């Protein structure tokens, strides 16, 4: 079965990371590894970042030295909230069902 868990969705992981404040690429990789235990590759990171920026969920900030930080947009925050609420409902139901067995 394909892994559909949040940890297999780089876009969601990046949104969660940026919800903690603006970050550049390397900082996002470290943050995701820290909170989700997932080591994203650079190709995966920038593929997901490209999609999120095209969808208007994140935006690039001016360069800081050679690094470009990104931050969550209002639309990104709303999308993240919606995704997490959906996951939270599924998790609650799942835990309740597992607990009742």
């Amino acid at each position, binding site marked *: 079965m394909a892994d559909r868990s949040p940890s297999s969705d780089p876009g969601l992981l990046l949104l969660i990371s940026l919800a903690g404040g603006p970050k550049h690429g390397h900082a996002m990789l470290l943050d995701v590894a820290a909170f989700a235990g997932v080591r994203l590759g650079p190709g995966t990171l920038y*593929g997901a970042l490209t999609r999120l920026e095209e969808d208007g969920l994140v935006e690039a900030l001016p360069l800081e030295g050679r*690094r470009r930080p990104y931050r969550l947009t209002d639309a990104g925050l709303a999308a993240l909230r919606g995704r997490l609420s959906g996951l939270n409902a599924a998790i609650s139901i799942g835990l309740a069902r597992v607990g009742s067995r």
Partner: protein
Amino acid sequence: MKRILRLYPSAWRRRYGDELSDLLEELPATPATTVDLLRGAARLHMRAFFDRVAPRLAPAGGPPMPTHPLQRHPTASALVAVLIAAPTAVFVSLSFLAYQLELPGMQAWLQPFMDGLQQAPRIVDLFLLAAPFLAFLLATLPLIGLRMERVDGELRVTLALRARTLNLIVLAVCVVVGGFLASHVLAEFLFEQP
């Protein structure tokens, strides 16, 4: 590892190339990173391809869209048909000049090719024979639109033909070449049987 960045779409590289390049300086060069970069490049190319193709496939009003891929790409079908039929067309043309019109010197010039063909695997013969008919189908199918619908309880079949110069030329050539080849094979079969 930065060489892999050359595989990324150029428009993408202009926007993100420097950032990714800087990031790579901070990461260890591992096989996993290399594979991830290659996969990223492939995905971006796929996305760029589908972004280009999708608007053409989406109907934007007007008459109903043709249904099968050959109808959507009649010119491409005709060009593929040309490629398939070309070896047979060349072979038939040269044979016609050498053995029907008996142009001086042509038979001697062509003989090594004929000898080579005699010794070639059977599949080569079969391809040369089948090519005009396959090419005919490829050139013709994009010109035919067959539509079946049920109107007031009865089945209605509508046949629509369209004329496209390139396809018509290719199918005419296929008819001539295929006809010549078929008549030649038939004559051999009828008159050279023991």
